[in-house]
């Protein structure tokens, strides 16, 4: 029995991202494509997203000109490929407050949003630090926090502290404190609805960028495979690795059930298709009775 269909939806990408940003320590190893995606979790009763991407109106030209982010498409276009509109989305889980994950909340007028309280608390603290510590304030847009306030004023933003089980039936939220960001979060889908699930999917946010973060060559330390953190840890690499271990444990150490959203290689593992806009849809799993959107 599977309650949810899960799709990773690409909404933009960077053609050449330095590999050391993806994989800690991979200096001078060239560039990889970095897809920008959000994740759709859909059941008979709910349409949920993990993250919402960024708002092209505010950032698009700047990002395109400065950093080569290409082919941004709106949620209407991206979700339209699966027969949905942004208005259909009832729940959004924000994994962290970076602009490319939290930057487009306005496009989802009927959704209730969830974010870790630690994420907001510590960003506020970081904003008070002297310039020499400004590195801690990267990639957060005051405008996004303002949009978060508007959501809160409408009663559509819930801040949570730590883990929260069954936020939707069979869907749990988990805190990875002081890791990629201050209060990064991952989402666990127990797709059979059981407390001890045999069908668990972990949606990793930016705690894992690519499968290499889970299964990197470990020969340098005399092992076959080892976890290797992503290139950006506002907290610590140790906390990233410990979060990876927790995520892997939830899946019974099946690395392909920890889903990274910046992974071009999803195409090698899951059914997928490229839309007419040139963006990938990866079909992670299907709910019982649901039809494929990539066949």
């Amino acid at each position, binding site marked *: 029995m599977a309650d949810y269909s899960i799709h990773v939806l690409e909404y933009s990408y*960077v*053609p*050449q*991202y*330095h590999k050391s*940003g993806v994989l800690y320590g991979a200096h001078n190893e060239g*560039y990889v494509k*970095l897809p*920008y995606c959000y994740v759709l979790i859909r059941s008979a009763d709910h349409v949920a997203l993990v993250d919402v991407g960024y708002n092209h109106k*505010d*950032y698009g030209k*700047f*990002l395109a000109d*400065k*950093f*080569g*982010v290409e082919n941004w498409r709106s949620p209407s276009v991206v979700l339209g490929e699966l027969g949905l509109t942004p208005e259909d989305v009832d729940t959004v889980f924000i994994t962290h407050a*970076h*602009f*490319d994950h939290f930057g487009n909340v306005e496009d989802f007028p009927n959704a209730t949003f969830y974010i870790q*309280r630690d994420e*907001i*608390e510590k*960003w*506020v*603290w970081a*904003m*008070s630090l002297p*310039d020499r510590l*400004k*590195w801690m*304030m*990267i*990639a*957060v*847009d*005051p*405008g996004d*926090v*303002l949009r*978060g*306030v*508007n959501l*809160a*004023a409408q*009663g559509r*933003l*819930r*801040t949570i502290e730590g883990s929260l089980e069954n936020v939707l039936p069979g869907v749990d939220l988990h805190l990875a404190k002081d890791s990629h960001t201050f209060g990064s979060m991952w989402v666990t889908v127990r797709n059979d609805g059981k407390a001890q699930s045999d069908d668990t999917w972990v949606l990793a946010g*930016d705690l894992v960028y690519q499968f290499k973060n889970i299964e990197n060559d470990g020969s340098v330390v005399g092992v076959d495979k080892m976890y290797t953190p992503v290139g*950006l840890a506002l907290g610590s690499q140790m906390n990233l690795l410990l979060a990876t271990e927790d995520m892997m444990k939830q899946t019974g150490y099946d690395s392909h059930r920890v889903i990274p959203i*910046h992974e071009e290689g999803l195409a090698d593992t899951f059914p997928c298709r490229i839309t007419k806009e040139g963006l990938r849809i990866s079909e992670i799993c299907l709910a019982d009775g649901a039809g494929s959107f990539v066949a």
Partner: protein
Amino acid sequence: MTRHTKRIHDAACDTWDLPRAGQGGDLRPRSGPDDVTDRYLAAIAPAYDRLSRVLAQLCGIFLLALTRDAQGNGLHLDHAMYGVARDQLNEARETLGGVPVPDPAHRHHAAMGQMAAHLSDAARDMDRMSALKTTPDRDIAKREILKRLAEAQHLLIATAEPDSGITPVDFTHACCNCTTGAA
């Protein structure tokens, strides 16, 4: 000093058509790029950064207060960072007041002053709101604070000069700062 390729928005630019922007009547047409404007941008950058931070702080503190309020514990403005934000706002206003303003930058400078004023009003109203007892009064106060914060954010975008490093978001180490062509 680095010579910038993009300058302050022209006085006739639609960017300035913002709520309450440019009502002082002291704004003059720009006269084009020059070292004076470069110096102004360099001098104003710390104040811009400070105001950007204060906006994020006030938004974050208000968000935390509102979400806690929604859980039934009442609106508490006891976050330690509230005092820090007000201190930073005062510092930014002092910097703004001390910067020599060349003719082309008068409108830019006025908009930054308005941004600081909105933030100051929002901070004051947040403080007052925590003492309000009735729901209607609090709803009115909430709307006014949101309006102030939104106007400040509009002005933050309007006064950004990305080519001079004056931008509300630091993308330097973001997921996108990665192309071979990136500086």
